[in-house]
């Protein structure tokens, strides 16, 4: 029995690899969009305008206070009634980008705020403008604090992407779910699912720990 199912599973591998590609695609697109939006929001969040800080803070709070599954449903089911027709894949990318952006916003904002106040004072005293300060003095130093959690966030992104399988996006999880209907060996099928996610995530987790160690050493030297 087991042997038969095992063969079936091997036969399904191409299907699983398609799922891997879909997971990578959804995560990758959301990563790019989320990073761009997240960086911009993070800079504003650490900036001078109180109104902007509060608005962005409220957005971050709502995104963090509600389950991602609910957010996916909201994007997929509610936006169409506002006139925007959405297929599963775009809806997934929108929801995931939004989630990623909110987390990256907080990472970037706290990285910027971690740069010692004296650095900004020295730059101000030389007559550098706010933009010049941010670009040449603050951001280069902030990136040290931002990089490790940023990579960690990308790992979370890949894991969170599994939720979009609920609206039919055929990613690794969905392939597993579809396969297990045919091959009722949950442990084997989802064991494979786990292994595939592990392969995608593990290198990133190590990268994140490595970066964390390197960045700490560099800051101590300073």
């Amino acid at each position, binding site marked *: 029995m087991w042997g038969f199912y095992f063969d079936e599973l091997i036969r399904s591998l191409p299907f699983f690899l398609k799922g891997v590609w879909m997971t990578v695609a959804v995560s990758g697109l959301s990563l790019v969009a989320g990073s761009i939006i997240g960086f911009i929001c993070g800079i504003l969040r650490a900036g001078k305008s109180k109104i902007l800080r509060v608005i962005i803070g409220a957005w971050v709070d709502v995104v963090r206070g509600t*389950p991602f599954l*609910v957010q996916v449903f909201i994007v997929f089911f509610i936006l169409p009634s506002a006139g925007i027709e959405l297929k599963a894949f775009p809806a997934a990318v929108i929801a995931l980008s939004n989630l990623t952006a909110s987390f990256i916003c907080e990472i970037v904002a706290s990285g910027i705020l971690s740069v010692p106040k004296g650095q900004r004072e020295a730059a101000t005293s030389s007559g550098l403008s706010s933009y010049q300060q941010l670009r040449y003095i603050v951001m280069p130093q902030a990136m040290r604090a931002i990089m490790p959690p940023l990579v960690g966030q990308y790992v979370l992104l890949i894991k969170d992407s599994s939720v979009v399988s609920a609206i039919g996006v055929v990613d690794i999880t969905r392939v597993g779910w579809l396969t297990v209907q045919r091959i009722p060996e949950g442990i084997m099928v*989802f064991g494979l699912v786990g292994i595939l996610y592990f392969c995608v995530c593990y290198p990133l987790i190590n990268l994140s720990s490595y970066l964390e160690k390197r960045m700490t050493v560099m800051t101590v030297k300073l």
Partner: protein
Amino acid sequence: MLEGFNFRVILEYLPLYGECFLATLWLSGLSLLGAILVGIIACAMRLSQSRIISKAAGVYIESIRSTPLLAQLYFFYFGLPSLGVMLPEWVTGVIALTLNSGAYYAEIIRSGIQAIHLGQIEAGISSGLSYFQRMRYIILPQALGMTIRPMLGQAIVLVKDSSLLSLISIVELTRAGQTLTSERFMPTEGFLTTAVFYLIIYYMLKAFSNWSEKRLVFKEAY
């Protein structure tokens, strides 16, 4: 989209939401207790002198952290029956949530313990305190203060994770939204109401986190 926001329907379904709200609290609460317990045990194993025990705990923690919760949930939901273990859905859900958050709690507790200055432990050893006495009087009280914030953070994550249980037919808050969608074709009312309930839990936990941090964190004497 919001012009036709139907408050009447929400009022009609309020009892259902009330039930589901309690279900979410109950499921999350139970899983939380389980997760903390699992976390303490796994952490103790991880810090053990025995390489085998430490490695075993390490494998558990890394597997959980490198794979998505949804995949783990399906693993148990589809996998346990194939082993002949038939459980009610909610038990499966609680098991998945417990084991998932348990791994994260293990890491949180571990970093809390390892963050305590070596000097304190040396002082304890020098006074003749035993391992358990040092744990009880010196290490754990301080670790508690330091970890309360990440622990409550993980609790918030757990509550949001519980929304995935709706995908294995468990009746909780997200399911209420799905019900309103399928029965009345009102995803807007359905999921926005769901979101509001989750936000209530989120803000309550956040307030508790701030309150307890003030009471429990001891300022560094350095």
